[in-house]
């Protein structure tokens, strides 16, 4: 894990919000209110926009050994079509022969169209400051921003997708690891939290909708934009599970389960989170 960033001040808004938290808001509910205010204050200048801008540039840039841009990459709505594509992912792609989420599809295009090796394509899957900028995170920011306001519509008509949904659902409730944890241990009841962070109840449609439609997100505490695969990866780490392999069927199955449960809600990412 990278060291957590500690800042004397995040900005004037953040200071005001923190002041209110320490300044006598003892009850849990008022703390939650203050955190909500803090998020609202940050919403206006969401640095995710910087990732969106970089991603848009990368989308059009000729790259890889074959010098090909992403404009030939098919995210499910036709080559190069980005608008609304994320709201219908994961889906089954016959050319790859498997169900894919956004991140694995981007890697697929980098490997099969741009001629990169899979290792190169996923080398910087999670960025770390200026030394290690992640193209995948930037591309994900751009693609998802083009689905803002679009209603989630992951189709379960395809049997492959249905299988992944069922697998994801069983993974969600499967208890394991050194702590005998399942996703449902933290995300199966209302009002659970880690420290001060309220955890969404993903077994309820509203909870799944609110959670899924706000990833990717800019994490203020990390100064990075994080995608949904990162979110799952870090949940696995916190559960002391084996590392969730990037773009694996396991990751895609869980994503399929949660994305399909968010169906009907307008996508609202990239968002901003603590």
């Amino acid at each position, binding site marked *: 894990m990278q*060291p957590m*960033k*500690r*800042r*004397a*001040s*995040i*900005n004037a808004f*953040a200071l005001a919000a923190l002041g209110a938290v320490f300044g006598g808001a003892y009850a849990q509910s008022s703390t939650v209110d203050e955190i909500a205010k803090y998020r609202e204050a940050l919403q*206006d*200048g*969401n*640095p995710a*926009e*910087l990732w969106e*801008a*970089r991603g848009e540039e990368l989308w059009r840039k000729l790259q890889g050994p074959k010098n090909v841009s992403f404009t030939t990459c098919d995210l499910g709505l036709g080559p190069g079509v980005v608008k609304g594509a994320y709201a219908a992912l994961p889906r089954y792609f016959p050319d790859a022969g498997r169900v894919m989420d956004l991140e694995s599809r981007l890697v697929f295009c980098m490997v099969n169209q741009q001629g990169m090796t899979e290792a190169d394509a996923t080398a910087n899957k999670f960025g770390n*400051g*200026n030394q290690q900028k992640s193209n995948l995170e930037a591309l994900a920011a751009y693609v998802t921003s083009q689905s803002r306001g679009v209603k989630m519509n992951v189709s379960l008509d395809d049997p492959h997708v249905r299988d992944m949904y069922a697998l994801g659902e069983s993974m969600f409730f499967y208890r394991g690891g050194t702590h005998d944890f399942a996703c449902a241990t933290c995300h199966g009841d209302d009002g659970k939290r880690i420290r001060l962070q309220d955890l969404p109840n993903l077994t309820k449609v509203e909870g799944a909708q609110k959670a899924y439609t706000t990833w990717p997100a800019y994490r*203020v505490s990390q*100064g990075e934009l994080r995608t949904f695969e990162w979110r799952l990866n870090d949940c696995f780490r916190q559960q002391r599970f084996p590392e969730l392999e990037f773009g694996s069927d396991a990751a895609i199955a869980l994503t399929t389960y949660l994305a399909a449960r968010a169906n009907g809600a307008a996508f609202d990412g990239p968002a901003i989170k603590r």
Partner: protein
Amino acid sequence: MADPMKIRANAIGDSTEVKVLMSHEMETGQRKDAQGKTIPAWFIQNVQVMHNDKVVLAAQWGPAIAKNPFVSFKFKGGAKGDKVKITWTDNHDETRTDEVVIA
């Protein structure tokens, strides 16, 4: 080369509201890396905002400003079509200038 800024400038009544998002590490010089070595300070020191040829905001910043800073302010005057030009310079003498037309 630093990434471009995101700038929005909107004329509201007799003033102009400017919102700027800058891409910068804003390293405090207080943090240590995994090897225990201090990460050198690296932050924006000067910010200047011009409305056409007139300076409307000049700021001196330090390491307490957050990573990827966001600045929002208003100035009197400014009409649709006018230019707003923003320049930052950091303590490595790296600089970036971006321009936007008031909407």
